[in-house]
């Protein structure tokens, strides 16, 4: 057995000093730890090294910055004393980042051969809060974020970026069990950045994404003025739920995550990463009908369980200021084709999409006599099959990459691994994660 010391290793942001909190351990002293699986984390902050920069400093909109770390060999963890400072000293960034600082050892039977085993592998995490009020200190990437991201890489590497814009089926795969990209970090071979934008309050179906890509600042101003005019004219005061929901709606309408650029502090210094090279979507988020604003023409899709978060004034606004537009499969196909073309033109990103589970172990249809035609208007599995076929055709005609959830789930048992058709087991998530990483790491056809 070898006792391998674990040091922090290099982490730099040109023009800044990186400060860190005390260690918050995820694995207790004496426990087994797997290589590449985070065993602890720090909160970090970036302090300007010289004069304060003019304008908004980097990372100012990402108030939750953390660095998680993992050993490069598996073994039994031996914690060094004095690094878990406790209380607010484990929350506030108080110590300069020291690459040589040793915080633990790992007792291992593996024979590390490249000299890197003594340096921790780092997972950098950043969360842009939906509101600065959402300051939660409870774990990895805590709080309510309008965008969260995690990145990693070795010196000299530039991470490629995957943007996740989906509902639970994609979010669970990309974010993982701790909602901090730790499983992707563990499985990935190269330098990557994972970015996740959640589905609240507006779900990222394709018409919403097209609107974001096409909306001009003047159009956003018109929407904001229209909302102000509508709610300002109401006789009854808005509830707290109405205000909070509207603030979140405006934040989503103003942003365009597909075009976002990202700053990243890395072992090799500060890097500016361009828009995502790949965007992953979920077919399951596409509704059969969508709301369209009667006057300004923009779309709105709030999933049923998120509608409950809106106050009465917002619910009334959604019902009166918007019209319902039906979306047959052909309309959804056209939307996908438009999106792929738009994204290719604006950023060049490749689009991946998780298809839908199209079989169910919970039904026992002996005859279709009892179901009105067209069957896809009634039967969810038939509708899912039609959508999957459509997606495959878009893939063939426009170069979209399909992540075949349908086949992966069927192979291991849909009833057990995706019991409601959306929420997957850990095993199924692992299979899908591997497929996504293989696609990311493969050269583009």
């Amino acid at each position: 057995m070898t006792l391998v010391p674990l040091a922090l290793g290099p982490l730099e942001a040109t023009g800044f000093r990186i400060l860190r909190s005390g260690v918050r351990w995820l694995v207790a002293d004496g426990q087994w730890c797997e290589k590449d699986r985070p065993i602890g984390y720090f909160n970090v902050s970036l302090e300007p090294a010289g004069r304060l920069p003019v304008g908004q400093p980097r990372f100012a909109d990402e108030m939750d910055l953390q660095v998680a770390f993992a050993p490069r060999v598996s073994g039994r963890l031996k914690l060094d004393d004095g690094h878990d400072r406790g209380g607010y000293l484990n929350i506030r960034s108080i110590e300069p980042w020291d690459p040589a600082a040793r915080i633990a050892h790992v007792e291992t039977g593996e024979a590390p051969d490249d000299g890197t085993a003594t340096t921790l592998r780092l997972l950098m995490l950043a969360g842009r809060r939906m509101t600065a009020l959402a300051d939660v200190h409870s774990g990895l990437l805590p709080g309510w974020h309008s965008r969260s991201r995690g990145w990693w890489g070795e010196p000299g590497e530039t991470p490629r970026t995957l943007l996740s814009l989906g509902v639970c089926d994609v979010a669970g795969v990309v974010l993982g069990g701790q909602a901090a990209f730790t499983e992707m970090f563990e499985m990935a071979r190269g330098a990557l950045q994972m970015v996740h934008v959640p589905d609240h309050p507006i779900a990222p179906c394709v018409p919403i994404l097209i609107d974001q890509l096409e909306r001009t600042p003047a159009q956003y101003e018109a929407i904001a003025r229209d909302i102000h005019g509508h709610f300002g004219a109401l006789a009854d005061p808005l509830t707290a739920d109405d205000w909070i929901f509207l603030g979140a709606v405006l934040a989503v309408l103003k942003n365009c995550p597909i075009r976002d650029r990202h700053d990243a502090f890395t072992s090799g210094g500060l890097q500016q990463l361009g828009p995502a090279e790949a965007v992953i979507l979920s077919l399951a988020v596409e509704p059969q009908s969508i709301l369209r604003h009667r006057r300004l023409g923009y779309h709105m899709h709030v999933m049923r369980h998120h509608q409950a978060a809106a106050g009465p004034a917002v619910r009334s606004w959604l019902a009166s200021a918007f019209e319902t537009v039906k979306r047959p499969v052909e309309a959804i196909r056209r939307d996908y084709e438009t999106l792929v073309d738009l994204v290719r033109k604006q950023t060049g990103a490749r689009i991946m999409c998780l298809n839908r589970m199209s079989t169910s172990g919970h039904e026992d249809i002996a005859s279709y006599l009892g179901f009105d035609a067209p069957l896809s208007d009634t039967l969810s599995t038939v509708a899912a099959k039609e959508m999957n076929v459509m997606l495959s055709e878009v893939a063939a005609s426009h170069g979209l990459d399909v992540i075949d959830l349908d086949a992966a789930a069927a192979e291991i048992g849909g009833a057990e691994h995706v019991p409601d058709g959306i929420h997957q087991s850990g095993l199924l998530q692992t299979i899908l994660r591997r497929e996504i990483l293989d696609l990311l790491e493969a050269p583009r056809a």
Partner: protein
Amino acid sequence: MIFEVSLGQIVPQMSGATVECVHARPGDMLAMGSKLVDLSVDLSRAFAQECPPVSYYRVVLREKACLRALTVKPGEALDVGELVALFSTDPAEPLDQTPERALRTTVAGIMHHENMFSGQQL
């Protein structure tokens, strides 16, 4: 002959279901293929989750029978095994007897629709 329809264990993890709509009335003679009820199964009834794992199902008759009693209405929550309806082969047959067996039905996953108790998607 009297038959019954009870809430079956559609999904292994479910503890119950909510009646979303009923498609027949007592006294109706229903043909094979007739719709009986639409149900929603929310697995977060058993496992609390932010995004509710809800799926929707329709119960359809696989044999002809007369609907004699419907013991549920839209919005009601049912436990697995709870009685949904009683049927008979003869419309005038007394109901004060033990059901012969379960009526043969089909269960299919369906899309949410506007006539459901849970309402229209905004």
